[in-house]
């Protein structure tokens, strides 16, 4: 008997069955529901403010890998980089009482949080770095969220494969104490590959949530009408889970 051939046929049949299930209405609903079960379980098991582990400075990895966009060439980003991001503005807008437009100088003058955390990419690798910046909660409280606001969207300067990068989180992660708008990595201004001049740190989720090259923070009631409607660049493009705490 040709065992290899038999196994390959058995395997192919099994995979075909799985894919047929995944493509069915019930199947895709179930696969999508698992993400919510994990999210609910995490919220049931832990306080919403529970902190991700922080490391001593000695644990910092000697290099912090960049992924996705590592050197944006679109729009005025190259010119801004050339000028040392002197005219960079961060807007806080959407469903807020007092929209803000902040310079890097404004952001550096706010109370800062410094944290040494581990960054986990969805692909599987990890790096450890020290991040510094104001807590997102401070910006949101200053701008004062309207009661309809349910999600915070992060707008980015980089255009990847023809689409503008963006990400979003719910208010639990937006108000998490370790969610900061970082402008420093290991005590230096952010390198371009890591999101200069500003990036988000969403420490309880995977790397693709940590939006880089941040230009605006937008409070919204629903994610449906933004880009592909799934709440983020990779979510729209490849179907990655919106809740990336798994």
């Amino acid at each position, binding site marked *: 008997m040709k065992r290899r051939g038999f196994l390959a046929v058995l*395997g192919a049949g099994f995979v075909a069955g799985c894919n047929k299930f995944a493509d069915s209405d019930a199947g895709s609903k179930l696969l999508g529901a*698992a993400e919510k079960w994990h999210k609910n379980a*995490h919220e049931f098991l832990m306080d919403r403010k529970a902190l*991700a582990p922080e490391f001593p400075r000695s644990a910092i990895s000697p290099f912090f890998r960049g992924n996705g966009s590592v050197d944006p060439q679109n729009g005025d980003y190259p010119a801004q980089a050339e000028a040392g991001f002197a005219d960079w503005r961060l807007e806080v807008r959407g469903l807020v009482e007092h929209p803000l437009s902040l310079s890097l100088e404004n952001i550096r003058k706010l109370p800062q949080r410094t944290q040494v955390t581990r960054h986990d990419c969805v*692909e599987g690798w*990890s790096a*450890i770095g020290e991040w510094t910046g104001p807590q997102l909660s401070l910006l949101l409280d200053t701008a004062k969220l309207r009661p309809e606001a349910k999600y915070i969207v992060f707008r980015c300067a980089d255009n990847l494969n023809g689409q503008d990068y963006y990400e979003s989180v719910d208010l639990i992660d937006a108000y998490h104490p370790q969610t900061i708008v970082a402008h420093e990595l290991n005590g230096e201004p952010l390198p371009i590959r890591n999101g200069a001049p500003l990036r988000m740190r969403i420490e309880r989720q995977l790397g693709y949530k940590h939006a880089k090259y941040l230009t605006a923070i937008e409070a919204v009631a629903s994610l449906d009408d933004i880009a592909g409607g799934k709440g983020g660049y990779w979510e729209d493009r490849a179907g990655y*889970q919106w809740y990336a705490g798994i």
Partner: protein
Amino acid sequence: MKRHALSTRLWHWLNLFCVVVLFMSGLTISNAHRLLYWGDWGFSRQQAWLEVPRFPDWMTIPGYYSLAVARDWHILIAWPFALGLLFMWAAMLLNRHFKRDIATSKREWRWSNIKRDIVQHLKLDFDHGDGKYNFLQKLAYGLVLGVFLPMMVFTGMAISPGLEPLLGWLVDLLGGRQSARSLHFIFAFAIFGFFIVHLALVILAGPFRQIRDMITGGRIDEA
């Protein structure tokens, strides 16, 4: 008396399905970053202790490269896998299957006994030993149920960033997140190894009766 309790049979087939889906979707996830590290961090060849080969598409779920779809399957089937294992342990302790058939006595760990057992396995003589299972069987089932399968759950939870505030101690115990990821991979292949040996022995010991009994429960001859 039935040879296999209903709880054992239900779990056996549920677990087979779960392990196959988790393993095949896991191979896709491995293809996303084929380097394994020890410690908390690692992101390039310089830190890797192993570069895993790329697994061909026909071995994987969904059968083409999609990290997102593979992750969807992996995190869905993780639920019946982990809860099923919990159920099996509760059932095994309650119906005394563990104590009666799997737990070993000190006597069985004597080298003379182990040697005899190995020799008899090599002679393909499977009807030996006092109880239901001989020493090597007890050892294999004990390892799979008590170490390999639970370690898949624990190392899997340790890799999940959302669980870290709760399970930081577990991540430290395992030697850091990248160590947990390496162990997840190692135990997955330990289970694959068990699967191959288990399948081979079922085929050698009479596959029809073995598979039938794991479905209907079979019967123990009281002779």
